[in-house]
């Protein structure tokens, strides 16, 4: 069963504006969450992560928010740039199983001029 869900397959945003990507999960045993970015013909690249003991983590233009009660996390990219056009994957790791990431299906982001 799909325990990590990204319900928006695509997102179009204007350059300079904010991109908000959403992710929902069902397993309350997940204790660590990550976002990866993927360009065509390349492997996913780590972007940012958050532990379940936090509700926010920021790194430059990227901020991840975690709402444990809602089992929801989001990635904010501001300002969006053309190079941000890629597929973004949300991933989660279960407590006690640090090597096994479970990924969502991804959201294709297109940043338009």
């Amino acid at each position, binding site marked *: 069963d799909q325990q990590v869900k990204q319900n928006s397959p695509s997102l179009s945003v204007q350059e300079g504006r904010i991109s908000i990507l959403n992710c929902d999960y069902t397993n309350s045993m997940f204790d660590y969450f990550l976002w990866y970015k993927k360009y065509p013909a390349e*492997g996913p690249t*780590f972007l940012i992560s958050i532990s379940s003991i936090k509700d926010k983590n920021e790194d430059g233009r990227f901020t991840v928010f975690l709402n444990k009660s809602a089992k929801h996390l989001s990635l904010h990219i501001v300002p969006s740039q053309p190079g941000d056009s890629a597929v973004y994957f949300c991933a989660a*790791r279960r407590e006690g199983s*640090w*090597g096994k990431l479970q990924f969502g299906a*991804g959201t294709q982001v297109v940043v338009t001029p």
Partner: protein
Amino acid sequence: GAGVSQTPSNKVTEKGKYVELRCDPISGHTALYWYRQSLGQGPEFLIYFQGTGAADDSGLPNDRFFAVRPEGSVSTLKIQRTERGDSAVYLCASSSPGRKNEQFFGPGTRLTVL
């Protein structure tokens, strides 16, 4: 420095054949992971190694799939009696002991079973 490399980049085989996919992790990375990604889906966990031993192989779909890492560096994913449903991109990743939460992925091997 060099990233994770995977060979071949593309592999086309016929149903029923045996294939081997190779992964060279980043030097010094002790953990190695295999995932596969089907079209329109996210990566799906297969197996991960800590050193030479498989720490978790719960994602291997059946006994046709097997992976080894005999010297704790290079790993080979082996698929016997391939089926059309095995067609996917097979991704390998590695992580360092000090930053095991960050998995660094290779470009993948695209496997097509005809």
